[in-house]
């Protein structure tokens, strides 16, 4: 059926056209732009859901186009891709609503929303990429479309953050290009098909493959904020709240982690990676990042920077999951891809609400926020407890699967890392909760708005509560079909374990 071949392209194209449309709109056409934005987000979500259903009963969606002979542009909807695409399209819908509310009368909104939809187009492109080349293509497009968002405010600080962001991501992109090109010379067009291609190479090339693996991981590690390459994430927190919410909690950071998942599972194949002995060092690196991120978060005084460092540590759970040899560890890693997205975007929304409604940026200004903004604070509490891994919430599901997976893979020390990081998470989230709920308001709010509304502007509150509810449901109703856990299991059983 022709539609199957064009659907992935249409999904990516919806937000591309939305971006172009918005760019052409003049600055003062607000309603039309919001309508454009929201309809594009809705259409994309609908299409992704349709594809998700299709993928469940083995329908094959694939767009293939040869760029130059030997290199083709493939968009394919496989379970893993659909999972990430689903996440980003759902969260894009909410973040668009949030952004419209957040940038009520800010300048340069056409530019903002244009690049915003461009960025999501590249994220979905990364999700649906069928081979390493297409993945790299959208990976770099993501860098380009996120830079203008990071420097949107135009202040000296945001421009400096933008410069650091660029240095890291373009450097990473260059190393990734090297890895992809080297792999290409060895194996030709590397399609994501559970690493069939690499196993057959003769053993003489194995050291070369290890070098390539290191290059790929370094390139992807920049966006996945692995230890030495995470410097850009905290500085990029100067961006407006919706940007730091969608991008640095979901799109950019997840693209890196998703890339590592693709490389380990679809390019090298988990057995071959295990045979080459690549998984153990990756697990060590991920664990180091987990602990380092939590420790640094402990010392931060600015709320968004603390959340940023927490993102640094949380994303490495996904990497840790991929590094665990065995289905349970993989499921843990993949399900955290969704859980962390839901939880972290809720936290960033709340941080944005606090900043926008009360003008609060530092943690010690948060005293008594619970009384003034109960709904946002409840959402924040849910997100925080989810992050700590308190059982009914989503975080626990991930930690449980990762723990069991680690034990089955014979890496007992990973359990210690998981538990230690939960303690550290508690150490930097609980004081914030304590201030919000149990401390009286010491000083008048620095810059209070939305007095009329009970909590904050409905456009800001609605997405926050929605994502909070979804993260709660992802945890509590983990057993339900179509829950993140269910989908992660489908991915593992359908594509990686015959």
């Amino acid at each position, binding site marked *: 059926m022709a539609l199957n071949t064009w659907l992935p392209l249409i999904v990516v194209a919806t937000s591309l056209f939305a971006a172009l449309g918005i760019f052409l709109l003049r600055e003062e056409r607000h309603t039309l732009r919001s309508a454009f934005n929201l309809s594009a987000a809705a259409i994309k979500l609908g299409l992704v859901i349709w594809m998700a259903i299709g993928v469940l009963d083995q329908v094959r969606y694939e767009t293939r186009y040869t760029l130059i002979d030997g290199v083709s542009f493939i968009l394919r909807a496989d379970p893993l891709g659909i999972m990430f695409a689903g996440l980003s399209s759902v969260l894009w819908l909410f973040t668009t609503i949030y952004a419209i509310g957040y940038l009520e009368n800010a300048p340069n909104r*056409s530019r903002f929303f244009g690049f915003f939809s461009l960025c999501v187009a590249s994220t979905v492109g990364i999700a649906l990429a069928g081979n390493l080349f297409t993945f*790299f293509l959208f990976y770099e497009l993501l860098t*380009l479309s996120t*830079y203008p968002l990071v420097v949107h405010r*135009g202040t000296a600080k945001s421009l400096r953050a933008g*410069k650091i962001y660029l240095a890291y991501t373009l450097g990473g992109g*260059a190393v990734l*290009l090297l890895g992809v090109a080297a792999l*290409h010379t060895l194996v030709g067009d590397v399609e994501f098909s559970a690493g069939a291609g690499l196993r057959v190479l003769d053993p003489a090339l194995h050291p070369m493959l290890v070098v390539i693996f290191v290059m790929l991981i370094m390139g992807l590690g920049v966006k996945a904020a692995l230890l030495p390459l995470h410097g850009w994430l905290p500085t990029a927190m100067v961006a407006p709240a919706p940007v730091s919410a969608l991008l640095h909690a979901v799109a950019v950071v997840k693209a890196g982690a998703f890339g590592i998942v693709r490389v380990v599972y679809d390019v090298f194949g988990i057995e071959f990676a295990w045979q080459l002995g690549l998984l153990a060092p990756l697990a060590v690196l991920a664990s180091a990042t987990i602990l380092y991120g939590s420790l640094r978060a402990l010392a931060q005084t600015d709320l968004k920077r603390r959340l940023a460092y927490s993102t640094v540590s949380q994303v490495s759970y996904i990497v840790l999951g991929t590094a665990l040899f065995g289905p349970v560890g993989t499921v843990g890693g993949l399900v955290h891809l969704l859980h962390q997205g839901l939880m972290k975007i809720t936290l960033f929304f709340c941080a944005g609400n606090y900043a926008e409604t009360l003008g609060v940026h530092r943690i010690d200004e948060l005293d008594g926020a619970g009384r003034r903004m109960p709904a946002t604070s409840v959402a924040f509490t849910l997100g925080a407890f989810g992050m700590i891994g308190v059982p009914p919430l989503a975080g626990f599901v991930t930690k449980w699967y990762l723990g069991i997976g680690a034990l089955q893979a014979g890496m007992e020390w990973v359990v210690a890392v998981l538990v230690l990081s939960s303690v550290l998470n508690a150490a930097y989230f609980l004081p914030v909760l304590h201030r919000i709920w149990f401390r009286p308001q010491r000083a008048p709010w620095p810059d209070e708005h939305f007095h009329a509304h009970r909590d904050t502007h409905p456009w800001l509150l609605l997405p926050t509560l929605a994502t909070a509810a979804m993260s709660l449901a992802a945890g509590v109703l983990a057993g339900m079909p179509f829950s993140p856990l269910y989908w992660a299991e489908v991915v593992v059983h359908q594509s990686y374990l015959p």
Partner: protein
Amino acid sequence: MSVALPLPWLIVVPLGGAMASFLVPERWRVRLGLAVLPVMWLVTLAVLGDLAAHGVQVHALGGWSAPLGITLLADGLALGMVALTTLVFSLCAVHAASHAAEKGHNGEIGFLWPLLWFLVAALNSIWLSADIFNLYVGLELLGLTAVGLVALTGSAEALAAAMRYLLAALLGSLCYLLGVALLYAAGGSLALGDLGTIAGSGATARVALALMTLGLILKTALFPLHAWLPPAHGGALAPVSALLSALVVKASLYILIRLWLALDPDVATAAAANLLGALGAGAVLWGGWMAWRQTKLKYLVAYSTVAQIGYLFLFFPLVTGTSTIAGGLAWDGTLLMLISHALAKAGMFLAAGNLVLAMGSPLIADLSGISRFRPLSLFSFGLAGVSLMGLPPSGGFTAKWLLLQSALHSGQWWWVVVLIVGGLLSAAYVFKVLRHSFVEGPKRDHFNSPPMAMELAALALAAAGMGVGLAAQSPLTWMRIGSPFGVGG
């Protein structure tokens, strides 16, 4: 049309256009200039059609075949360049025309059009010619026209730049002429086709190649000899500098590639090829660094040309003495880089021209807040920048990808480092400009606004730069017809 369109039309039409616009009084020159464009397009498309239908075309001028007379050779490479020239020229012409219309008929624009058409004629004569002395005359024609275009504004900097450019051009073509003399003495014939067989591989041919190479890299402004390019391209009018950077600089490289492939393989030694590669690497690094340090917008773009030319010279080490696969990849990569650079650089120069016009000052620092008033030009500047940086999905990226593959296949991994670092450096200076445009500087609400056509021309070129990346397959297969690397591969 069963019988193929004779090739000389590609030269006659622009020459005729030049002479006509030279004769016609000033008021009509712009309209006449634009009128000749569709004819030019028709001829180009017809010849391209013939290439597809009948393959490589040869036209013996004056009825005299190769050794005695001059022949025009239209293989994939030549016609690819002709098509590129037509595309870039038409958009620059549209830009110049709308600029002239908007500014009213002041003096210096008057003789712009004859010179522009002479430029096209010179370019087409170089792409098509298969005779080394005829290439010399084409080079001279091109050199003088380019010098004239640079000096057009009559200001002190323009005249100094033009003088420096002219001296460099003269020295370059004189060395080339010396090379022609030696080759004629050694081989007895001026035809490019059979040069390899008759010129032998003695000292004469080697000295001739060295002289010609030096003459041509001086005219292409390769790294140590690049000093004349930035003032010339930075100071000229926007459409002029676009044409200079996109096409004129490439003509001498084109001749060098033709020579390098025509001569006997062991005349073009690996040492010479690596020397050229090293100079190219130097160009990429030095050009990138200097572009990053510039404070004037057009000078930044000019130095970016110096840098990007470096990439093209990686062709020589990747072709001499390597496997056919690596050679084929290098051929595709270099030509795609040439095309996408031409499109992107022309687009960037036009966009830069629009921005300078809108801001009223050449400095990058004054760009703050431009994104609210001239978003389209800034967008096309960014788009062209993406192609120069070699980020997907642009043509620059696909070309860089092919060169990377070729370098890895041929085992010369050090060019990979040059490609990667060059990409980062170009990212540095492109984002330097974009960064300034994001600064929410002092409230500057008064920007003069160039007409829409100028912005659309810049956008069209930048978009073509990206498009060539996506649709890289067709131009590459065309360019392989009649190339030493054969079809496919």
